[in-house]
């Protein structure tokens, strides 16, 4: 049994130690917004925030989140009220197939929380652990840049 904060709520869940956080989220907690791309930490599709830091959920064994704070795309906004990042991604055409989007949104959120005025280089660095095969990244960078205060 592990206990951790998931999107602001404390949860307790029975999970075997050989499950990854990604598998726990998708298969047990039915939070399928977090995607599995490569499964080996290369593509960034499964990015969630652990204590506010972007991590690849496919490389985190479930027991590692005990007592920690996990944020997934499901905690970012809702259908009724989108997070400003989600709105900006839509406005800038930063989403095409959408598979990489949840992960990139989580890395973008972590960036803006640490640095509300990121320059282009800092934005590129923050999303450097993500592969997007549709957009060519420019629209994504512009969408994040538009949220600078």
């Amino acid at each position: 049994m592990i206990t951790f904060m998931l999107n602001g709520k404390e949860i307790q869940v029975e999970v075997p130690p050989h499950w990854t956080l990604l598998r726990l989220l998708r298969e047990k907690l039915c939070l399928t917004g977090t995607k599995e791309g490569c499964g080996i930490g290369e593509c960034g599709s499964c990015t969630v925030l652990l204590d506010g830091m972007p991590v690849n959920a496919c490389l985190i064994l479930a027991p590692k989140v005990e007592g920690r704070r996990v944020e997934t795309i499901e905690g970012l906004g809702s259908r009724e009220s989108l997070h400003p990042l989600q709105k900006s991604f839509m406005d800038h055409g930063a989403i095409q197939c959408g598979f990489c989007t949840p992960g990139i949104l989580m890395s973008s959120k972590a960036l803006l929380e640490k640095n509300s005025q990121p320059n282009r280089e800092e934005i590129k660095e923050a999303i450097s652990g993500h592969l997007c095969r549709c957009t060519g990244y420019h629209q994504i960078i512009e969408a994040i840049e538009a949220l600078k205060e």
Partner: protein
Amino acid sequence: MIPPFEYKIPNTIEETCDLLWKAKGKAKIIAGGTDLVIGLRNGDQAPSVIIDITRIEQLRKIEEKNSTLSIGATVTHSEIASSPSVRKYGKVLSDAASEIGSPQIRNVGTIGGNIVNASPAADTLPPLMVLNAMGRVISKEEERQVPLAQLFKGPYQTQLKPHELLVQISFQKLHPEVKSSFVRLARRDAMAIARMNVAVVFQVEQSRIKDIRIAVGSVTPTPQRMSGAETFLEGEKLEEKLLKKASLKVSETMIRQSGIRPSTSYKQPVVEALFIRAMKKALEE
């Protein structure tokens, strides 16, 4: 899918050593897991016990003691990259840590893990070798200090016994006048594994090179100090022609260690150029 195993989370080094001793070689240590979890997934690793050492507070510290800087085995690459003391006293390591993998990898991957995984391409190893870093290794039997350069046996192989635990890395603080740099070459900046990585530290006194240390990774079975080039450069007057000649010593060592391979016609001029680039970068900073 990852096959099952037992998962232990010790709170102390002693407890960890006990668990390792009892496991008789069937346990694996996990810190960040950025290498191990991939190994578990593809079947390269199949331990019956996994011991998570990231809750041991003692292993998570960066400490300054008189002339040395010590880094606990489970300090992450992000923590190293953002540590003012590492930047001040071992910038070559700080630079390497900031270029590893991706932000996601750096947030969980640790320096101890990068060392014991012993990848020939590990980015922290050439910097640690030019810093003459020492590893502190503890087991139920003994405690020992190992020069990092002696820790590697071959690709992905260390001299550590299965019941031994790397707990800390330490090195002599670099003086502010010491020049250093780290350069890496890969297919792209983020995520890609280094094709070559070079670290240098040296001083310049009256335009002569002093205390030069050079290490190259990825092109030999384990990262290597380039002692031929070091001896050649020591005490010599720093000039372009000399660096060119020294770069030939670097590629000679590479070929002696790895043999002539199909890739040699590419790697030879590139490792020479990369060494010169590292020297120039160190001089500019």
